[in-house]
């Protein structure tokens, strides 16, 4: 997973430019006729098998889309573990360090005041706030880091053009293979997915056919 680009890039589709972070679509993608193939599977078990097959077939630009996290699917998809823990460790230690530094600075340098006969550098008394700020830092790191890794918010996505796709937040278990995958082929990939037992297979357009420039809505 790459961190989001700082330089905004026009998405390939002509949808409204709502996303703060743009789709990771190659520059040359203007030439693709479709976003890719979307296949729906009936059960989590079938989806799991299909993901193993897609992984083993050597596809790299593809995704599984499900209403809930399917246990262990990242293994079937061959995904690497998330790097998020490192972000969280760094922001957590940063928060704690900042907290301890602030308190020490306030009590030793900025506003030295002897209270209840204790020394200026009363480190035990700094522990609660240090701890709290460490947790705050780590939690912010976890949430914002997750948003960054996932490129959220991304209000527009070509998959939303498929009328079927609304089921992804209900009971639909999908695999989407993107057109810019080196192994992708309009016909073969679709057949490959239906061969894996997909209930429905469709091509998702990259541009809304009825799009007049601002008509397509992501939300």
């Amino acid at each position: 997973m790459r961190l989001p680009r700082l330089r905004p890039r026009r998405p390939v589709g002509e949808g409204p430019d709502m996303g703060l972070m743009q789709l990771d679509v190659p520059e040359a993608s203007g030439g693709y006729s479709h976003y890719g193939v979307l296949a729906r599977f009936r059960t989590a078990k079938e989806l799991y098998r299909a993901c193993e097959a897609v992984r083993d077939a050597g596809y790299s630009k593809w995704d599984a889309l499900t209403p809930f996290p399917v246990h262990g699917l990242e293994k079937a998809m061959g995904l690497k573990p998330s790097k998020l823990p490192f972000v969280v460790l760094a922001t957590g230690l940063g928060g704690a360090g900042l907290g301890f530094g602030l308190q020490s600075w306030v009590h030793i340098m900025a506003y030295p005041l002897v209270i209840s006969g204790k020394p200026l550098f009363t480190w035990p008394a700094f522990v609660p706030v240090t701890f709290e700020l460490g947790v705050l830092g780590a939690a912010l790191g976890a949430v914002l880091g997750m948003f960054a890794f996932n490129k959220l918010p991304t209000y527009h996505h070509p998959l939303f053009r498929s009328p079927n796709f609304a089921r992804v937040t209900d009971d639909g278990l999908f695999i989407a293979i993107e057109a810019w995958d080196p192994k992708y082929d309009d016909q073969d990939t679709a057949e490959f997915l239906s061969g894996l037992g997909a209930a429905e297979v469709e091509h998702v357009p990259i541009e809304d056919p009825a799009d007049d420039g601002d008509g397509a809505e992501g939300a």
Partner: protein
Amino acid sequence: MAHGPRIVDLDRLVIRPGSGWERLPPVAGAVGVVFTALSIVLARGSGESTKQFFHSWLVAVVFFLCIGLGCLFFVLIHHATKAGWGVVVRRLAENLACTVPVLAVLFIPVVALGMYDLFHWTHADAVAHDRLLRVKEPWLNETGFWIRTGIYFVVWSGLALYFRNASRRQDDSGDETLSHRMARFSPVAVALFAVTLTFAGFDWLMSLEPHWYSTMFGVYFFAGTVVSAFAALTVLTLAFERSGHFRGVITGEHFHDLGKLLFAFTVFWAYIAFSQFFLIWYANIPEETNWFLSRLHGTDLNPADWRPATMLLAIGHFAVPFFFLMPRTIKRNRTLLLVGALWMLAMHLWDVFWLVMPNLHREMTFSLLDLTCLLGVGGVFLATAGWLLNRGSLVPSRDPRLVESLAFENI
């Protein structure tokens, strides 16, 4: 998963004939007897060394007792929560818990002989001149002390034996009602355990300094107990895996869970220890701070003072394992997890030493008796554990949740 099911042969989950585990009871027993005898010889040197012997012996017995009691707690909680993941290691805990009656035999006579050397409140002349000790006499008197100690050991031994026996009966009969019965009884057992452990901590450790009191002390004793038990359980499980007994039974998933619990209780211990210190330090009331003063006096770097010992506890019992045990990879790596578990055992020993020894030495002092007593009690402890482990299956082989435990996977 494309590959077929993992096959686990339950009849082979006993200690193999000819393995080192068979020789453990006699070897460890011999070590125990030899070093106990040596300790007694050393103790007879002078009045000082007798005092040293009783303190060192208390440290050693309490240390191993903590392991047994913590394992008992694990068994009780396992039944109370109807847990599935840990069935494969539960028998090891059941066996370690059953060392408690043997440790009672090591505890009672020696402490009885050493009452005067260990507990200031037994000195009649001191009580006569000390209002506080007089006020506490209804609690701090030898009769009461021994009645209570008897109750603690009877309760613990009874619970440990009951849960081990019921579980072993299930090995033979496969009777599922035994699981229900243990699950039903365990909450009551937890309540009994909590009360007895608290007061054992008060009686045996807190009353070493009879003027001092802390409502948290029972919880502190409990936290250290559980840390040492999870460390010991991890070490024992790893040892059985190394000797080839648990192949295909214990997986990285189980070690991951043991590591998580070890980590969690290490943090819990730190939370309790810091809260106790912090509140007393902050309020700074003379009758409370005394106890910490004797453990914090001196300078940071002088090894003769207790202050570095306290710092070692803070760093070694919390800061180091906190960062060491945090990553997932370490908990799933056998060698590194073994290092972490052994380290926590050593730190728990240090904790008990730190609780007891300032009662004897104003300055931090090591003695040869510390080592010989530890080896003496440890030998007997290991011999008992080894003897128990050699009897019957190493896992509850007909526990209805055994299969769930074998197949367990972390989130």
